[in-house]
Every structure is written in structure tokens, then in C-alpha cells.
């Protein structure tokens, strides 16, 4: 096939849309729900499920704040309070923060790189089901009084077999396995999609920053999650078949758990935070009418944060008997991580400085996030110092610090991203007035709740206390914090009302309501099931702005099956075509067998053989190819060099 001279006239084949939609659309109804491998519906489910867990964790936090609003309060006894604060921490960290950022990444990355779907759609679907089973497992336990009660960090020996009877901590440990499998699958999927399926011409220096953060986060997941997986495997084995990893009397070591857990723990908080910076860097151009300032600086600082994050974990263990030299290394590393974060904030402020800011809700949330994150960053550097941390470690000062950093670095950018991409996902805009109410209530609520906690921490109030005595003088500041919690609660209610209203009567948004520059705004909203009619070609960092009204595309992908274009890693040169197997129910079935494998394992070791056999059977049907539709079975079709692509 000789290279056709580029046809200048615009091509509008309506029947192309019909054919593609017939191939890519997922089946209707409930069965379609179970069988879809479309990255958009899986990503929407990830975000929706993570948001439900966010609301549940918010209710837990509200109850905790009610209990702590007065000294010697009687709302929650010690046992229930321990379950509540453990569930609040576990849900926010494992079931909300990472999955919601995975969901946002899964939705946006294919659209931003100009691909029709993610790399391994079936594995991606299975990842969501495994995550859902993990969430249902732990909340099922929680509602039958079997919620974990040893903290989201579950320090041994308290979480060990001797001091945590019953199945509470076992359920927690298995939930870790589920969320970790889901995150690992999503990481491998994202890395492959970003490296192999970018639009032709989108070389690495033209990749949007959101895609860069997702790539760095995926690599961090690949090296952080195994640490918590190994740790929870050791803990589960200690509790169920009495191995001695953490039994001091038989050579085990309580600090082994802390090292393994925090080696995962600190990268985990950066796994949540980096997508937040990606969201802000992606939406700033639309609201300042200029590309983000210092693209190379931002990308390098994201990569630098990714590496430094793995060298910080011991700052969670400054109060343990570790050698002095080791602690000062980690002090230096913890302080230096502020440099890349500082660079990002300075670049954003420079972007706003030289742009024309448009005060819409996404920009409001971005400004709120910068303000709150800077305060959190300041306290972060303070607690990098070992002596100072020895005073405020495990107190409410730390609670204040990480709530500022997570609300500023994760939740506020998430809400900014929500308001920014909601029109692309649903085709309707969220209301600006409700948005402003939502922002101001949350901004005031967050500061009212968490700023007093700095003082409480320095006055000696330890973390995870179900109550405190009258004479300690902590009563009034705790009351202020509880009032702040009510304000945050009301702001989330406003948000939910805004979402409900927008679904039915929100203003209809066209393909590009904000006039933004990245590829996801080049397709319709909500995007068709196949994202792009033809594969777009990219010639710069702002494809939509640079291509004027007419998008350069490459045609020729198959129309009778789900085919995607693979491109080379560095310069995204078209390289080969790959057929996706399409929608199938087997990812759901394999996820269920994985669920059976791990849940039965809590109660009896027979879960291992049962689960393995079921899993192998289900995976066999998952992999087994249906029918042979390619007659040229054996000989290799002649490969043709890709057509010339304009630089």
C-alpha cells in the first residue's frame, strides 16, 4: 500500500462512527456493567466507589470529632473508638486516596495521549473488582463489630496474635492484599499505556504533566506496594499459622514491621500527592490562558519527588531506638524533599503571575490547595528535625500536619479536577455558585478544624485517644476542631447537591467548555466509546490550541474489531497495531475467585488450594481465545514502514 498523498479535504464519514461504536460500545444494562472493559466506565466506577468510601470515612471522622468535642465524652467507648479511628485512617488511605487518583488517571491518560483504550483492558477491569471486594470485605467486617482496631499502621505486637484476638486484624491484612493487587495492576496498565500507546508525534517532551505524574506514580506503586504486601503477608502468617516474624521471644522484631510498613507508607502519601500536582499543572493553563510555566522544571521535580520519597521512611520512626547517624540522614532527606515541591509551587505562582487568571471554581480550589499545602509543607520541614519531632511525634501536631498536606495536596486538587473534568465526563457543567459555596465552606472548615490541632499537639495531646481528662485543658480547642468538622461536613453536602443538580439540569458543555489545550478536549463530551474517530497526531505540548480548528489524524485502524495503534517509546512513531479482545465477563469472575482465595484463607488454610484451583479455571476461560477469525494463521503479513509524519 503506497503512502497516500495526505488528503487535504476534511474527512467526515458518519458511517465510521456507527461501525466503531458497534465494536467498542459495552453491552447495555447490568450485564454490560459486569463485562465492560472500556477504561472510561471502569475509571468512573473507581472514582464513584472511592468517593463513597470518602463519605463513609467522613462520617467516621464526624463521629470521632463528636466524641472528642468534650472531655470524658460518652458517645464512643474505647473499643468502638479504636475501630472508628482505624477505619477512618484505613479507608482514607487505602480505599479513597490511591484508588480515586488511579481512577482519575485511568480516565484521563488514554484521552490525553490520544489512545482508544488502556493497554490491558481486561486486567484493568479485574483490578477494579478486586479493589471493590477489598472495600466490601473490610466494611462488612466493620458493620459486624469486626472492624480493625489496631490503627491504620497496625504496629506489632499490638496487632499481633497475642494482643489482637479474633479476626479483626486478619480482615484488615487481607484488605491490604486486595487494594495492593488493584493498585499494582493499574500501575502496570498505566506504564504500558503511557509508553506504548501515545498519539504519533507525542514525544516524551510533549507529554502532558498529568500523564507524567501518573507515570511516576505508577513506578512508585510498583516499588512501594510490595513492601506493604510482604508486611501484611508476614502479619497474616504470624496470626494464622504462627510464624515468628514479629515475635521478639523467637528472634522476630517489632521494628521489622515498622520498617516494611513505612517503606511503603511514605511513598504512599506521595502516590496520593503527585497526581494532585498533576491535576493543578493540567488545569492552570485553561484558567490563566497560557501554557504552564517551566514544563521541564515541573517534570523533573515530579521525577525527583518520586525518587526521594523512597529515602524518607525512617522519619516516622524517630522515637524508636535507631542509631543517631541514620536519623540525621533521614532528617536531611526529609528536608530536601521540600525542594521539588517548592519548585512546583513557584512554577504555579509564576504561571498565575504571567497569565490572566479566570476566577472559576477549579482555580479557587487550586489557590486553596496551594495555600493549605504550603502551611502543611512548613510543618513538614519542622518535624524533619529529630529533636523537635521527639516532642511532637504521635501527637495532634502530626495530625494537623498530615491533614494540611493531604487536604492541600490531594483533596483540594481533586475537587478542582472534579469541577474541571466533570463537563468532559458527563457533558454538563457543575454550578459555579454552588462551587464557590463548596470551596469557601471547605476552606474555612479545614482551617477551623486542623489549625487548633497544632496547639493541641504541642500541649501534649497524643494521637488515637478516645477521650481526655478534664484537667488537661484541651477541651476548648477540641470543641473548635469539632465545629470545624461540621463545616467540612456541610461543604461536602453542598458538593453532593451540586453533583445531583448538575446531572439533570447542569448547563450543557460542548467539547471544550474551558477552552483548554490538551487532547481530551479534542473529542466530544462525554467522549464516544472509542474516544477518537481517528488517531490524532500531535505536534506540540498544546495540541488543541496549536491545531486551530482542524485536527491532524491518522486513519487506517480496523473497524470490525477493537484495534489500537502502538507507537515507539521515545518519539511515539507509529510502530504496530494490536487487537484488544473486547468486552468479557471473565475479569469479574477471576476477581471473585481471588476474593474467595483470600477471604477463605482468613478462616482456614484450605482457602489456598480451593482458591488456586478456582482461580486457574477462571483464568483459563479468561485467556482462552474464542474463535479463529484471522485466516492467515501462520505466515506473517508483510510489514509496511509507517507513513511519513509531519514534524
Amino acid at each position, binding site marked *: *500500500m503506497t503512502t*497516500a498523498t*495526505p*488528503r*487535504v479535504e*476534511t474527512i467526515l464519514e458518519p458511517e465510521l462512527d456507527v461501525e466503531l461504536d458497534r465494536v467498542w460500545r459495552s453491552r447495555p444494562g447490568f450485564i454490560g456493567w459486569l463485562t465492560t472493559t472500556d477504561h472510561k466506565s471502569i475509571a468512573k466506577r473507581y472514582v464513584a466507589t472511592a468517593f463513597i468510601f470518602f463519605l463513609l470515612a467522613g462520617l467516621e471522622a464526624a463521629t470521632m470529632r463528636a466524641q472528642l468535642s468534650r472531655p470524658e465524652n460518652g458517645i464512643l467507648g474505647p473499643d468502638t473508638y479504636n475501630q472508628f479511628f482505624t477505619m477512618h485512617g484505613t479507608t482514607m488511605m487505602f480505599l479513597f486516596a490511591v484508588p480515586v487518583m488511579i481512577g482519575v488517571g485511568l480516565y484521563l491518560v488514554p484521552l490525553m495521549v490520544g489512545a482508544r483504550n488502556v*493497554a490491558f483492558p481486561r*486486567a484493568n477491569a479485574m483490578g477494579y473488582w478486586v479493589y471493590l471486594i477489598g472495600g466490601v470485605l473490610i466494611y462488612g467486617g466493620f458493620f459486624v463489630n469486626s472492624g480493625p482496631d489496631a490503627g491504620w499502621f497496625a504496629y506489632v505486637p499490638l496487632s499481633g496474635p497475642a494482643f489482637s484476638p479474633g479476626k479483626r486484624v486478619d480482615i484488615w491484612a487481607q484488605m491490604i492484599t486486595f487494594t495492593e493487587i488493584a493498585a499494582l495492576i493499574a*500501575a*502496570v496498565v498505566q*506504564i*504500558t499505556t503511557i509508553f*506504548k500507546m501515545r498519539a504519533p508525534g507525542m514525544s516524551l517532551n510533549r507529554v502532558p504533566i498529568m500523564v507524567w505524574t501518573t507515570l511516576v506514580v505508577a513506578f512508585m506503586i*510498583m516499588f512501594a*506496594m*510490595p*513492601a506493604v*504486601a510482604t508486611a501484611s*503477608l*508476614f502479619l497474616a502468617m504470624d496470626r494464622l*499459622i504462627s*510464624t*515468628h*516474624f514479629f515475635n521478639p521471644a*523467637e*528472634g*522476630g*522484631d517489632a521494628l*521489622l514491621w515498622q520498617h*516494611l510498613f513505612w517503606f511503603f507508607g511514605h511513598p504512599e502519601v506521595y502516590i496520593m500527592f503527585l497526581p494532585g500536582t498533576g491535576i493543578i499543572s493540567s488545569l492552570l493553563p485553561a484558567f490563566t490562558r497560557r501554557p504552564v510555566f517551566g514544563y521541564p522544571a515541573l517534570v523533573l521535580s515530579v521525577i525527583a519527588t518520586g525518587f526521594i520519597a523512597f529515602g524518607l521512611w525512617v522519619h516516622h520512626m524517630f522515637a524508636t531506638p535507631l542509631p543517631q547517624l541514620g536519623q540525621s540522614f533521614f532528617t536531611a532527606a526529609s528536608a530536601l524533599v521540600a525542594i521539588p515541591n517548592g519548585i512546583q509551587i513557584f512554577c504555579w505562582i509564576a504561571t498565575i503571575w504571567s497569565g490572566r487568571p479566570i476566577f472559576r471554581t477549579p482555580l479557587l480550589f487550586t489557590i486553596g490547595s496551594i495555600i493549605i499545602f504550603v502551611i502543611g509543607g512548613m510543618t513538614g520541614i519542622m518535624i524533619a528535625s529529630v529533636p523537635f519531632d521527639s516532642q511532637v511525634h504521635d501527637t495532634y501536631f502530626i495530625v494537623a500536619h498530615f491533614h494540611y498536606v493531604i487536604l492541600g495536596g490531594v483533596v483540594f486538587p481533586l475537587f478542582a479536577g472534579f469541577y474541571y473534568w466533570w463537563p468532559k465526563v458527563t457533558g454538563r457543567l457543575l454550578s459555579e455558585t454552588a462551587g464557590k459555596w463548596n470551596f469557601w465552606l471547605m476552606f474555612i472548615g479545614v482551617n477551623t478544624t486542623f489549625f487548633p490541632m497544632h496547639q493541641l499537639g504541642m500541649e501534649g495531646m497524643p494521637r488515637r485517644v478516645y477521650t481526655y481528662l478534664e484537667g488537661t485543658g484541651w477541651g476548648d480547642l477540641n470543641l473548635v476542631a469539632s465545629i470545624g468538622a461540621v463545616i467540612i461536613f456541610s461543604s461536602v453536602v453542598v458538593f453532593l447537591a451540586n453533583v445531583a443538580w448538575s446531572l439533570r439540569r447542569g448547563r450543557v458543555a460542548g467539547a471544550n467548555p474551558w477552552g483548554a489545550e490538551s487532547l481530551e478536549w479534542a473529542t466530544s463530551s462525554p467522549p464516544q466509546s472509542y474516544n477518537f474517530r*481517528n*488517531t490524532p*497526531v500531535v505536534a506540540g505540548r498544546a495540541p488543541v490550541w496549536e491545531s486551530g*480548528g*482542524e*485536527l491532524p*489524524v*491518522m*486513519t*487506517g*485502524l*480496523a473497524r470490525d474489531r477493537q484495534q489500537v495503534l502502538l507507537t515507539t517509546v521515545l518519539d511515539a512513531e*507509529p*510502530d*504496530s*497495531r494490536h*487487537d484488544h479482545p473486547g468486552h468479557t465477563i471473565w475479569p469479574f469472575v477471576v476477581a471473585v475467585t481471588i476474593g474467595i482465595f483470600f477471604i477463605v484463607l482468613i478462616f482456614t488454610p484450605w482457602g489456598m488450594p480451593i482458591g488456586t484451583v478456582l482461580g486457574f479455571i477462571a*483464568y483459563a476461560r479468561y485467556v*482462552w*481465545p474464542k474463535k*479463529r477469525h*484471522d485466516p492467515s*494463521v*501462520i505466515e*506473517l*503479513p508483510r*510489514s*509496511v514502514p*509507517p*507513513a511519513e509524519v509531519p514534524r
Partner: protein
Amino acid sequence: MNRERAVADVSGLPTVVFGPRNLVWWGTTGFAVIEGFSLGLCAVTYVYLRKNYSVWPPEGTKMPSLLLPTINMAIMLASLPLAMWTKKRAERLELGASRIGLILSAIVGLVVFGLRIAEFTSLNTQWNSNAYSSIIWTILGFHGTLILIDVYDTIGITLISFLRMESKWFPEIADNATYWMFTVLVWFPLYLLVYFGPRWL
């Protein structure tokens, strides 16, 4: 953006590509890196627990015997040329040779898995007697599941190569061979750690 300008046509691009050009290669390598890192963490735990003891292995725990594990290790190393051979045949799209390579790999895999189950006895200790035995059982078991998954994968692809063969399965055969090479090479340092750790550390 409803107006589009065609600049090139990709319908001529190949669909069967090998190595990093192929999507499946990225999936297999991704999971190999994850499993390799997890095993690495188990090895770090082994060394970490070593410092809790003055005598290694702890008093009253016998040294692991070397016969069975060394045989298993030898078989695994011997199977590397077979895996490389199969990979080359698959990359040259020689179906017959690939099928032979797959059958042999499946057999070797089953033998190695069987020996691994037997290898547990050569640890000469129960998993619940002390931290030392807990970690060596975990390392053996963890890697054992990798062997099991790889054997299952090989048998699956062998069946596909006979019953549902298509040109797009050749890269899968090559990747399966690479994954087996990873499983063998990752075991060599762990083999030294588990069986010669008690002697040297």
C-alpha cells in the same frame, strides 16, 4: 473539533511484533519486576532477622541439607538454554519447533515444581519453630508460587499453540520463555541465601 485532516494511514503496520515493541512484553516484565522486588524484600528481611541472633541458624535448628535444592537449581539452570531456544524459534515463527520447545518447557516446569515441594523437607525445620524457619519457608513458598504460575502459563500456551494457534501467539511464547528465565535467574541468589546463608552469614 469535528474537522479532521488525514495525514497518514497506519493500516499497513504489522500486528505481530516481538520484545518491547509488543504490549504483552510490558505486562510480563512489569509483574516480573514486582515479584522480583517482593522477593528482594524477603531477602532483606532474612538478613534483618539474622542480626537478632548471635548464632545462625538459631540453636536447636539443623542446617538445611543441600542435595535436593542443588539438583533443583541445576535443572533450572539447565533449562535456560531450552528457554532461549524456544524464544528464538518463536521469534522466527517456526510453529513446529516452538511447540516442541513448549512441551519440553512444560515438562521441565512440572519437574521443578515437584522438586520444589520436596525441597521443603530439606529445610529441616518447621515454619513455626522460629523467625529463621519462618522466613526461609516464606521465601521458598513465595518463589514456589512463581514457578507454579509459570508452569500453568506454559501449559496454557502449549494447549493454545495446538488448538487455537494464530500468528499473534508467537510473541506470547517468547514472553513465556523470558518469564521462565526470570524465574530461574531470580532464584539463584535466593538459593545461595537460603541454603548457604546459614553456613556463611
